[in-house]
């Protein structure tokens, strides 16, 4: 391997730019500087933990000036009193143990930082610093200078300390504590040996058991009573009713047995039942703390923006304070937070956050610019037309779909079963009671309670959580991250799939480039490639990567004209690369305008143009033909229908293609399908799909980098796994099959238990055996089955 990679960031080094420093090779000055900072502070063991862990620092001059504004600062800080301040910063680059090490040793680089602590799964660092010595702005600059630029967005503006709900952990802890101790103390009873001393201490043991069962009964199981009560109130029979009924009956009967000295009661089964069910609940919750499923525009938008006051002074203001008529200054790589009119002469705006389209759009002075675009290139000025909440894009969030907290859109499979289960159970209990009451009143009561106890659908209630929990983990490993277990059921119900076009079924990483024109000589190729090298425009970068490798030559002059193209001089030749009007294409026809292309002119000779076509994701055609047999497929696009013909050849015949869709129209489109009774899955990527994603039954967001951005949705899919979408859908169907199978299994247990119960033979020991046994078989059954199905492609 002759290729050198950078000691700091691991990127392959371009030979001519290699920097040698301290016997190490670096790809650029930035990486070298970071290394210098670390070696100066005696911290080079950063490189010992992981090979090439760093990132190249970016130029952020002026980007964080807003942190000087006291009002903004107060919102960003987590805590501030006297001179101690605490801030929690989100740093997307955190990815390895070296990162943890360097960020937790910040105090050695920068005096004033007292302590810093990394939360790796959340990619956050919490820094405690002395605000007299150092400002937050300089900390942010320090972090950026070592390649750990924090991500500060509008979301940080409204952070109250959100309290983590740990009640389930407490409940589980209490349940386990009670269960373990009760089991231990119940042991002598299981053997029923008529031994003098055991009989002697029986009241003591039983009293202890009773008191130990109280916290489990009153606290741990409390969620089930609440849920059962709610479900009765809303007249929807859910699974929690028989559970709550079973637990209460169990407790009352056991207390009665104990007081009357009939037997030890079922406290052991009760504690076990509560514990296992809470365990199932816990297992079902699998959170990906590095992902967020609740993002709206606030996670994308900056917290502040530079305003130009009438007296030409510049000032950072929170973007909520931006009013109509204000003049704003937008720097390179900054996001435009509001709709407005461009004042500067030219601008190139990248709307990839919004539409997924990688190619920036050129705007002239006086053009409308919309919120959500990212400025590329020079500093621009704009005048505000609408405030933040009234902008074109942000208005989407005032749609009612974002307002109401959708409690539950559908009935779960467990609830569907329990609609029949509960009445049948009660029927059996009363029939048993009615039969025995004529024979023996005591037995009648025993039978009645025993039925309710033994039929308490523990195994039934555990089936879904364990299956979904396991499937959730399997999918997570394959980079399909679901918000929660309910999404799996929703996935299985989907019958219509709607895809966004740009950024979803096309990729913005690679472009399909075609050349049209006179043949390019070896020499011209060298010139073009070298001219493109200096440009940071996305199209130039794509074309640069597309052209064959050549040797380096020196450019005599290089100029990039925003919105037009590149003007360069090599030797005595002038080279123009850019738009048709800039290059002066002799035979321009209007149909060409819809296509993105770069025209080339060397000297006085027009060579031709490179046309950029959408590159569809790998395996798209196969995926669609596989999906087509089971689902209705539709494609929505915000673009014009220039790609229609091309798409029609790739996609199955009956695919509906809809073009020129605004964000609200996409939402309406989904709504209409739902009104026709369809279960819709929306697959999208940009912020303009956010409405459709929220409206759909399952909103799946495709993300090139799952750690960074994705709009609010039910599931996030890594873009590389896109072609496996049909497999994921199939797995969700299999999950439902597994649940149905194990429902049968758990009902069998209920039948066995009931046969003991109705004959009046339910011993506490039998109950204590049946319950854990059924639980364990169900759990192992569903785990094995779901693993089996996931392996079968």
């Amino acid at each position: 391997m002759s290729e050198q990679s950078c000691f700091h960031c691991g990127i392959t080094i371009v030979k001519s730019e290699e920097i040698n420093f301290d016997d190490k090779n670096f790809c650029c000055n930035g990486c070298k500087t970071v290394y210098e900072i670390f070696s100066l502070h005696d911290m080079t063991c950063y490189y010992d933990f992981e090979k090439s862990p760093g990132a190249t620092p970016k130029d952020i001059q002026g980007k964080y000036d807003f942190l000087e504004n006291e009002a903004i600062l107060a919102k960003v800080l987590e805590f501030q009193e006297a001179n101690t301040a605490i801030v929690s910063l989100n740093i997307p680059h955190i990815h390895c143990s070296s990162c943890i090490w360097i960020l937790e040793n910040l105090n050695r680089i920068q005096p004033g930082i007292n302590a810093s602590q990394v939360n790796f799964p959340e990619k956050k660092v919490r820094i405690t610093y002395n605000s007299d010595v150092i400002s937050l702005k300089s900390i942010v600059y320090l972090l950026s200078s070592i390649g750990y630029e924090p991500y500060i967005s509008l979301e940080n503006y409204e952070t109250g300390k959100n309290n983590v709900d740990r009640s389930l952990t407490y409940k589980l802890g209490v349940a386990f504590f009670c269960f373990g101790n009760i089991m231990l103390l119940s042991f002598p009873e299981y053997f029923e040996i008529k031994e003098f001393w055991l009989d002697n201490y029986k009241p003591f043991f039983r009293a202890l058991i009773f008191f130990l069962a109280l916290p489990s009964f009153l606290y741990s199981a409390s969620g089930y009573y609440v849920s059962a009560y709610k479900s009765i109130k809303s007249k929807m029979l859910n699974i929690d009713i028989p559970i709550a009924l079973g637990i209460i009956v169990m407790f009352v009967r056991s207390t009665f047995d104990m007081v009357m000295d009939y037997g030890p009661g079922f406290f052991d089964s009760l504690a076990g039942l509560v514990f296992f069910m809470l365990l199932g609940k816990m297992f079902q919750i699998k959170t990906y703390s590095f992902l967020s499923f609740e993002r709206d525009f606030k996670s994308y938008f900056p917290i502040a923006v530079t305003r130009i006051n009438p007296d030409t002074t510049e000032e950072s203001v929170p973007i909520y304070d931006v009013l109509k008529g204000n003049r704003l200054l937008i720097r390179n790589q900054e996001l435009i937070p509001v709709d407005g009119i461009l004042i500067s002469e030219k601008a190139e705006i990248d709307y990839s956050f919004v539409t997924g389209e990688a190619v920036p759009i050129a705007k002239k002075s006086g053009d409308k610019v919309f919120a959500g675009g990212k400025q590329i290139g020079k500093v621009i000025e704009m005048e505000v037309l609408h405030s933040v909440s009234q902008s074109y894009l942000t208005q989407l969030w005032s749609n009612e779909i974002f307002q109401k907290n959708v409690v539950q859109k559908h009935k779960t499979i467990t609830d569907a079963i329990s609609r029949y289960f509960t009445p049948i159970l009660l029927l059996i209990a009363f029939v048993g009671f009615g039969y025995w009451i004529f024979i023996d009143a005591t037995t009648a009561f025993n039978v009645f309670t025993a039925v309710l106890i033994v039929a308490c659908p523990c195994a039934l209630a555990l089936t879904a959580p364990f299956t979904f929990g396991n499937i959730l983990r399997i999918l997570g490993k394959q980079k399909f991250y679901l918000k929660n277990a309910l999404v799996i059921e929703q996935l299985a119900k989907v019958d219509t799939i709607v895809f966004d076009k740009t950024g979803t079924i096309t990729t913005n990483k690679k472009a399909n480039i075609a050349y049209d024109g006179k043949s390019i000589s070896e020499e011209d190729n060298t010139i073009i490639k070298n001219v493109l090298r200096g440009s940071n425009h996305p199209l130039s970068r794509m074309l640069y990567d597309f052209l064959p490798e050549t040797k380096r030559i020196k450019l005599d002059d290089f100029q990039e004209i925003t919105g037009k193209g590149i003007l360069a001089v090599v030797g005595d030749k002038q080279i123009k690369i850019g738009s048709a009007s800039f290059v002066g294409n002799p035979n321009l026809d209007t149909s060409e305008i819809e296509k993105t292309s770069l025209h080339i002119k060397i000297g006085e000779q027009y060579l031709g143009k490179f046309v950029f076509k959408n590159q569809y994701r790998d395996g798209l055609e196969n995926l669609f033909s596989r999906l087509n047999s089971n689902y209705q497929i539709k494609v929505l696009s915000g673009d014009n229908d220039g790609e229609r013909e091309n798409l029609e050849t790739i996609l199955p015949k009956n695919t509906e293609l809809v073009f020129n869709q605004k964000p609200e129209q996409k939402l309406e489109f989904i709504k209409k399908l739902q009104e026709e009774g369809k279960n819709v899955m929306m697959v999208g990527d940009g912020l303009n799909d956010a409405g459709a994603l929220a409206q759909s039954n399952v909103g799946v967001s495709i993300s090139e980098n799952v750690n960074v951005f994705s709009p609010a949705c039910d599931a996030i899919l890594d873009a590389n796994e896109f072609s496996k979408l049909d497999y994921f859908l199939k797995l969700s169907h299999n999950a439902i099959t597994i649940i149905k199978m194990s429902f049968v299994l758990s009902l069998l247990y209920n039948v066995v238990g009931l046969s003991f119960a109705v004959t009046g033979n339910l011993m506490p020991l039998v109950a204590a055996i049946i319950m854990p046994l059924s639980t364990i078989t169900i759990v192992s059954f569903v785990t094995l089955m779901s693993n089996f199905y996931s392996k079968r492609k």
Partner: protein
Amino acid sequence: MSVIYLLISVSIFVAIGFFIAFIVAVKSGQYDDDYTPSVRILFDDETKITPRDNKPKIEEKQV
């Protein structure tokens, strides 16, 4: 045999002690991040050793 009252009571109190320790641990946020501490524990040794290793080198450079 009445010692069994004492023994069982003691065992219950020990169990309660552990239970309280668990609750306190959860409350303090110990289980919120279960990855970083596992890495961090390996660092403490490194940071102590490296300064001693590297110091002479740095001094040489400065001279």
